[in-house]
């Protein structure tokens, strides 16, 4: 069953297309990583899925209905990001209890165990927490809500390394116990890579790639060797990245014969998903160095 179905989804914001005919679907009980550069449209897409924002055109279905203004979608979805601000007049413990009142699957025991583990005090106020602590608390709400659709938008903002690791581990363990559909948007693919099943890569408001993590790892390889031989083997449009330092090195779509490459004496190497993402989503011509070349 598909939990999310998007067809030709368009979102205009101030005459700018932030989502441009987006098509994809997400299956039930999977963890999908939503990857993209700053401003690619990740948050816009997630807020439309959560029912916060309206679509401009196209179709979006979550659990088979339009999420905007749907109480059903709201009850079965939780959206966690670093912008969550809670009332000052409630303590952290009060907030957990309030959340428990609203979410039908709320797991108070898990919430309290995480609460104690991360060293929160019951009468602390959300506003007074540090950035990382706020993110950690929001994460607890996101996990304990046990919503069939759980969305984390940049959940690790401000968290230190060990809390991040704990968070991913907690997410995975809880997911195994209570399978559900999870979407995580992140800049740090290398951190979430082991957790994910699918990767949804968006670029300039469009879906660039939607593959399993294994498919993503096999999507491209690095080739090193004689430039003429390389271009004899692969099409130029399949080349994602070129580096001429220390011999020709290209990252190229994995659509050519590996045997032939070996015969030509080219060296094949795997590309990490994180590097691949960087090359796939590179929008600028040249590099940051070019900015400083004024003459």
């Amino acid at each position, binding site marked *: 069953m598909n939990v999310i179905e998007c067809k030709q989804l368009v979102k205009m914001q101030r005459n700018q297309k932030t989502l441009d005919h987006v098509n994809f679907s997400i299956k039930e009980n999977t963890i999908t990583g939503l990857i993209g550069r700053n401003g690619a449209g990740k948050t816009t897409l997630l807020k439309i899925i959560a029912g916060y924002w309206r679509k401009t055109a196209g179709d979006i279905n979550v659990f088979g209905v339009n999420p905007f203004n749907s109480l059903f979608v709201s009850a079965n979805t939780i959206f966690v990001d670093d912008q969550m601000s809670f009332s000052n*007049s409630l303590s952290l413990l009060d907030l957990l209890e309030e959340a428990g009142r609203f979410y039908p699957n709320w797991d108070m025991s898990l919430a309290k165990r995480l609460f104690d583990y991360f060293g929160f005090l019951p009468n602390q106020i959300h506003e007074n927490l540090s950035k990382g602590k706020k993110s950690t608390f929001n994460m607890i709400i996101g996990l304990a809500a046990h919503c069939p659709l759980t969305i984390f938008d940049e959940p690790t903002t401000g968290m230190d390394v060990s809390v991040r690791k704990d968070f991913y581990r907690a997410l995975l363990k809880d997911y195994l116990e209570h399978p559900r559909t999870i979407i995580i948007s992140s800049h740090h693919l290398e951190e979430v890579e082991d957790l994910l099943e699918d990767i949804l890569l968006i670029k300039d408001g469009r879906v660039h790639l939607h593959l399993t993590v294994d498919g993503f790892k096999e999507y491209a390889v690095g080739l090193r060797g004689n430039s003429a031989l390389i271009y004899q083997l692969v099409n130029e449009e399949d080349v994602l990245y070129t580096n001429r330092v220390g011999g020709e090195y290209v990252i190229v779509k994995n659509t050519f014969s590996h045997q032939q490459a070996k015969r030509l004496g080219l060296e094949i190497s795997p590309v990490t998903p994180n590097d691949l993402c960087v090359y796939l989503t590179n929008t600028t011509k040249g590099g940051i160095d070019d900015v400083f070349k004024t003459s």
Partner: protein
Amino acid sequence: MSLKQVSESKIIKNQLLFKLNSFTGVFTSMLALQLLAIFMSYYGSSSMGGGGVYGISYTFSYYSANVVIAFTFLWIFVNSILITTRAYKEDDFHFVTNRMTQNLSNILFLFVASLIGAVTAMLSSFLVKILIYFFKATKGNYLAVDLNALEWFTGLAATILILFMLGSFGYFIGILVQWYKKLAIILPVVLIGTVMALASQGHYILPEIIEFYFMEHSFIVFLLKVIGSAGVLFAAAILISNQQEVRK
């Protein structure tokens, strides 16, 4: 994980409880304003003196809780605008809501606030009287209390209704401003401008409005006028906010 259906009425009830728990600022500001008003009622009062015949002179001083009630009117108006602002609005969206349940729970909250505001404001008149009894009605000063239970309860009911209507007015304005931010400047200019322009033509609209609502002799007609106005304003607020995006 299985999908759960939730009932609208249960969510509205939860939202109301959440609001009563977390919007404590609304009630502390009420307390502060009413205490200030009680203080003003105790000190400031209208007096009328006379006498001189046979060497007797007298002064009547009128004390009432009208200032407290006026301050409570102001309080509900300001706070009904406040609960439409971003921080309050987003609170609901961290949990389970849609725009309809949010509006309905806000309306219920305003009704409960009207109830609490009216009861405390009306009871404060007794506090003023007790203060006067103990501290002013001494050494030849006498306290006369004009109290009629039926009148008091009618006054209470009328105060609740007027507070609720003012709440609906503030809520409507708040929603309008959330919908189009520049209205925060345009609305007061247009409203005050119209009132002043009409006044310069010899047409005084404010006394007419006050007369329309407050000088009504039949309680039923008054009830219909007030509930009708509140209903129209709330319905308009719901219509406008129903398509609005949150967490921008």
